[in-house]
């Protein structure tokens, strides 16, 4: 009994990494189902859903809220960072384990509790899930009477996110203490794999951003239950009755939330960028072009990411000069991002590409990163954002870059590190099918949304027609998007099959099946002094082709 409990409440970082990944898998399954319901409803608004009935607009908003919350928090913050870093980070820096294993375990269990509380917000409350979006803007989110699900459902959402913030804080401090303090002798900053750099920057962002969300969530909870008035404006009325007292400011919530919200999306994408760099080096057998610049650009993106939150607020009534300042810094982020892309292209160009599945997903990451990133500078301009804000153009932008690039980064990681988790390789053919169908279906889903957005189609509206608008001309487009989305979701079945069957019956992977140089693949003794760089590929033929990082610099005969 004690042994079983010890296995469940493990402090082994590898096991915790797998547990985080399984949690993210559960979240993405639920989140994807919700998104399919949304897509289905947009095209067939009056259809009767079996076991539910006709979806009302507020049900649609509940779907939007839960979909966003699950995906942003429980998939894109958990999997690339907590999941993979726990699995691989200590190995990559030559450490025996994380700095604070018990804090690590605590962080996982808090994340799981947070997930369960969130699910209970949707299913165990009389009013159902909250409808104020993952961004939970007041006064809608501050007043229980403001809508269905805004009572207990909203409270549980706030509690869930609050717990998640604490878990994220613990995880970040653990990761930072590990990276700073537990590197093996010789593992200098310039010898770190790019994945470790990305986790370093992402952890700093996590440490700084999530606590701000915690403060905001606490203040919102206080507004709802302790009678304070941080966010509810004076004279706010619900059903003809004035609610609240004093003169709070919804803008204050926006400032606090987006100060968290923007770094959050960089937390979601930076680990994928670091992994892409590693995989490009590994599968083109090249050194990383401009390693120090690439690492520096990750840091620059992280730093600038803390300064751009106002670009979510261009049309919210902020001072236009503040908008200009935020626009300038937002467009500045395009510089290090482009530098990263050029570095990737330079690493790939002319390399003999081994197009194995992890590499394909890394290339897919690159493709989505560029596609989604190109619409960033467009949205960064207040004059354009006045029109495009809250249209499907924005939805297309962040789904391409977060949902697709971020998720492809997670896929790449799973395919790549599968041998570390199970000792077996995932099936290559199934992997390739998964990749191509997902890539095409994803572009089929999200590229047309740009056109819908340019046509003015708003977000958060549950259907194309209403008392004040008529977008039925977009119906064929929307249908195409829905079909693509269904195909995209179906393709993930191939992935799931591949994961669970290969775990049992996949081809046994040898030691270091991808012929990687990074330390996590070393099976035996890691030397007590690291003396090689992280990506020493590119050797003349006939010399084994590469120097793993655990090799000593003395020439082995």
């Amino acid at each position, binding site marked *: 009994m004690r042994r079983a409990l010890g296995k469940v409440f493990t402090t082994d970082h590898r096991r915790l990494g797998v547990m985080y990944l399984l949690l993210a898998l559960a979240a993405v399954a639920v989140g994807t189902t919700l998104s399919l319901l949304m897509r289905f409803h947009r095209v067939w608004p009056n259809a009767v859903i079996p076991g539910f009935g006709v979806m009302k607009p507020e049900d649609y908003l509940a779907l939007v809220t839960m979909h966003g919350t699950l995906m942003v928090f429980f998939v894109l913050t958990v999997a690339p960072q907590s999941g993979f870093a726990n699995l691989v980070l200590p190995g990559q820096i030559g450490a025996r384990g994380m700095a604070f294993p018990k804090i690590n375990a605590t962080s996982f269990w808090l994340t799981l509790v947070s997930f369960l509380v969130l699910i209970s917000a949707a299913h165990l409350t009389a009013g159902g899930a909250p409808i104020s979006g993952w961004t939970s803007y007041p006064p809608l989110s501050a007043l229980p009477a403001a809508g269905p699900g805004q009572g207990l459902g909203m409270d549980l959402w706030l509690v869930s996110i609050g717990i998640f913030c604490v878990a994220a804080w613990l995880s*970040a401090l653990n990761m930072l203490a590990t990276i700073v*303090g537990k590197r093996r002798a010789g593992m200098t900053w310039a010898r770190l794999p790019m994945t470790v750099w990305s986790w370093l920057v992402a952890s700093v962002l996590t440490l700084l951003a999530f*606590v701000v969300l915690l403060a905001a969530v606490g203040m919102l909870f206080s507004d709802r239950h302790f*009678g*304070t*008035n941080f966010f509810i404006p004076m004279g706010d009325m619900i059903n003809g009755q004035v609610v609240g007292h*004093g003169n709070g*400011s919804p803008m204050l919530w926006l400032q*606090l939330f987006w100060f968290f919200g923007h770094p959050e999306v960089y937390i979601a994408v930076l680990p994928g960028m670091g992994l892409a760099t590693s995989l490009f080096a590994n599968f083109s057998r090249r050194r990383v072009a401009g390693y120090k610049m690439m690492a520096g650009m990750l840091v620059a993106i992280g730093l600038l990411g803390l300064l751009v939150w106002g670009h979510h607020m261009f049309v919210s009534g902020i001072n236009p000069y503040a908008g200009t300042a935020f626009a300038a810094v937002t467009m500045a982020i395009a510089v290090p991002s482009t530098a990263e892309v050029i570095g990737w292209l330079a690493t790939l160009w002319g390399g003999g590409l081994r197009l194995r599945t992890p590499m394909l997903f890394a290339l897919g990451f690159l493709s989505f990163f560029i596609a989604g990133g190109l619409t960033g500078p467009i949205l960064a301009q207040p004059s354009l954002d006045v029109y495009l804000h809250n249209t499907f153009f924005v939805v297309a932008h962040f789904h391409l870059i977060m949902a697709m690039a971020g998720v492809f980064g997670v896929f790449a990681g799973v395919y790549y590190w599968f041998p570390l988790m199970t000792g077996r390789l995932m099936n290559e053919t199934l992997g390739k099918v998964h990749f191509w169908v997902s890539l095409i279906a994803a572009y089929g889903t999200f590229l047309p949304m740009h056109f819908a957005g340019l046509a003015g189609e708003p977000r958060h509206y549950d259907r194309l027609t209403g008392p004040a608008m008529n977008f039925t001309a977009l119906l064929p487009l929307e249908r195409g998007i829905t079909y693509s989305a269904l195909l995209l979701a179906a393709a993930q079945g191939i992935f799931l099959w591949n994961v669970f069957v290969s775990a049992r019956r996949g081809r046994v992977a040898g030691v270091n099946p991808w012929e990687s140089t990074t330390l996590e693949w070393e099976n035996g003794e890691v030397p007590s*002094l690291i003396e090689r760089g992280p990506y020493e590929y590119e050797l003349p033929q006939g010399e084994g082709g590469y120097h793993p990082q655990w090799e000593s610099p003395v020439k082995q005969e």
Partner: protein
Amino acid sequence: MPATFTRNPVDVERNDTGIGGKPPYDRRPTGGGGDGENWENHPQGRGGPRELLIRYRLGLMFALSGDLMFFVALVSAFFVRQSTGHFDVYNHYTTDWRSLAVPPILWLNTAVLLLSSVTMEIARRQLFHEIDVMEEWLGLGRPAVKRAAPWLIATLGLGLTFLVGQWVAWEQLVQQGYLLSAPNPSSNFFYLITGIHGLHLVVGVLALMAALMGLFTLKKVEFRQIAVDSVAWYWHTMGIFWAFLFVLLVFFQ
């Protein structure tokens, strides 16, 4: 050999084995390390007690950085709310912020908290006296613990006094009609800021009690040092935060 302060200069014995061969074994009494990136002197295998202490301090520093950012968020909200207003019919910019005069007992509480930091630091230093630590390490009684414990208890007492004083301040405000739920924003923020800080201090008091217990239950002297050291740095940080928050509430309304 656990981490110590010492007034005697430490002789670094390093046998240079010449070209090739193993790196020299570091025989410094603190267990070695602490040289930054000087990998040649890095001891082989596990780090010593000093490394463990440094790792805990590092973790605590990161945790407190996050906490600092949390308070920065609250203070930013404070300033934003203070200057939030509108242009009235006469084109004057008016705000609805009415300054809240802090109850005078807050000055006393501040003095008490700063004093508690002094006692905390004295307690922390008692646990690093080389001779006492060496005796504890050798198993010859607990002289360092005997010196540190009274100061820890003093800190605990002063900390509890601070918390009681904060509660009294709240009671005074309630009697004047300033509630948490008052429409007056400065009232909301006063309770928010002092309340959040107070919660942190409650955590600190619990940690102090745990450290005090640990002084008598933890087997290794290095763990006792780490326990008190961690609590001490947390306590000082909460004191410094309070200093800033106090100045904010008194002078920046």
